[in-house]
């Protein structure tokens, strides 16, 4: 299910003094199975762009093609893509509402019109996928810890078996261990479950290690579209956008500046160690 954004533009509060162009003429194609990192400063238009991609708000101009179909065409039933394009909003745990974890996760598949048995099966699979234990299934979602709540919320979207999963800053407000868990889960979804993933973040460290392709948004415009290794060649540009390089890359650059001839394109700690070892021995 490839997604194509075609000259997408979205304006908030058109013709008022507070008019903001949140998404400005973005065109991009997202292929099946890609793991994409969408990066931008706060207020750069990431969330708005995601909502446009998933058919939740109508663009001011331009459109989105999913599977070759124009989803904003007059006769297109937007309800038909619900569940196929799953979106996990920022702080998704704020949307939990049922009495038990299990019921909440059933909400999506039930809305898809599945029967009871299938609904429960999907909910069960999703909860297992995010690594929740059976004990919590019949607890109130409001009694869980922050990290658990977030997994329940993600399971609530996964239970619809989306082909494309969009996550808006899924690690916001989690501790480092929680971040790693969630990012690991998302990577698994892409590599093992073959989902197309769009992961939004304002931190390079979060995405650099995992994704195949990075899209950088600045001021509503698509500024950079490249692989992680290429992106960091745009160092000055990134700094101008208020984004910084991953800590590891920064460290490698200072090592190089101090006269040791290392390559500076390392992204993960392991790569960095390997490169340093290579130069030293």
């Amino acid at each position: 299910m490839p997604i194509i954004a075609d000259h997408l533009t979205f304006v908030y509060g058109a013709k008022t003094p507070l008019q903001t162009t949140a998404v400005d003429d973005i065109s991009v194609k997202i292929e099946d199975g890609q793991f994409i990192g969408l990066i931008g400063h706060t207020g750069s238009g990431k969330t708005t762009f995601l909502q446009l991609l998933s058919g939740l708000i109508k663009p001011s101009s331009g459109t989105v093609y999913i599977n070759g179909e124009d989803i904003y065409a007059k006769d297109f039933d937007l309800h038909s893509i619900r569940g196929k394009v799953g979106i996990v909003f920022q702080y998704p745990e704020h949307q939990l509402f049922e009495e038990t974890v299990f019921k909440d996760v059933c909400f999506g598949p039930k809305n898809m019109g599945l029967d009871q048995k299938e609904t429960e099966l999907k909910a069960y699979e999703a909860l297992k996928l995010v690594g929740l234990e059976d004990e919590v299934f019949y607890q109130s979602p409001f009694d869980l810890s922050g990290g658990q709540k977030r997994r329940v919320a993600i399971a609530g979207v996964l239970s619809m078996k989306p082909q494309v999963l969009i996550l808006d800053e899924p690690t916001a407000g989690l501790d480092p261990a929680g971040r790693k868990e969630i990012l690991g889960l998302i990577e698994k979804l892409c590599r093992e479950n073959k989902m197309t993933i769009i992961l939004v973040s304002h931190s390079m460290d979060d995405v650099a290690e995992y994704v195949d392709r990075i899209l950088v948004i600045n001021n509503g415009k698509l500024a950079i579209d490249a692989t992680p290794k290429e992106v960091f060649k745009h160092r000055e540009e990134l700094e101008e956008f208020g984004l910084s390089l991953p800590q590891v890359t920064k460290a490698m650059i200072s090592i190089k500046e101090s006269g040791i001839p290392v390559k500076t394109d390392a992204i993960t700690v392991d790569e960095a160690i390997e490169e340093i070892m290579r130069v030293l021995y």
Partner: protein
Amino acid sequence: MKDITLGQYYQAESVIHRLDPRVKLVGTLLYMISLFVFNNIFCYIVAAILLAVVIALSKVPIGYMLKGMRAIMFIMIFTVIFNVFFTNGDNLVEFWIFHISKEGIRMAILMMVRLTLLIISASIMTLTTTPNRLTDGLEKLFRPLKLIKLPVHEIAMMMSIALRFIPILMEEADKIVKAQTARGARFDSKKLTERAKSLIPLIVPLFISAFRRASDLALAMEARGYHGGDGRTKLYPLKYASRDYISYAVLILYVAIIVFLGITSARIIAHLTPANSYLSLLF
């Protein structure tokens, strides 16, 4: 929801924006009363002129103001229809249970003018005054009621918090609706019972979020030493400037003119129009 201008602040630099909120509160109240005390055309002409001047001074675009009125159009049309058909008087046209009378048409026109002026005057006040200034004004105006043990400061504080939270909760509701829509929820069901049920996934999270915000806010206020109104000073205390005294003078002049016109107009009208002419419909 986004189209409701009533109750929203419009940022601009104007005399009306800078006026003391107390002047605007008293002015709006007197103006509204004046619309209901007398009901002849001269009073309305004067009232409309005053409003037009205020609008011009306020620098709020007319289009923006009228956009906010669309939401209330329905009530207005309803009132007009009701008045045309159900006011008793000499019937001009009659069918089934309806009868259109001269009085009916007169009442309908009157009500429409009245409501329009009323709504515009109220929205001018809220468009040009931030909620904070508004509650400051209310608090100060009602301060004397403290003597009868009314917790004026607390009420004002609650009002300003409530007003502050309206846009936040609207935004929150918008987010939740989108999130649940993405999970396949439908909020547009035709059947009433289904529609009510479909609201649960919206209302439960909204309430939880409101409570969470309320307790966070209470904690933050306490942590910063909030202890009620006694001995509390203001960052921007309300002080009358000369423009405020001038406004009060204009207001008094307006009331005097309206009262004068209201009392004498009956006689003027009698001179101007012979009874039963269609012109007399207007008066």
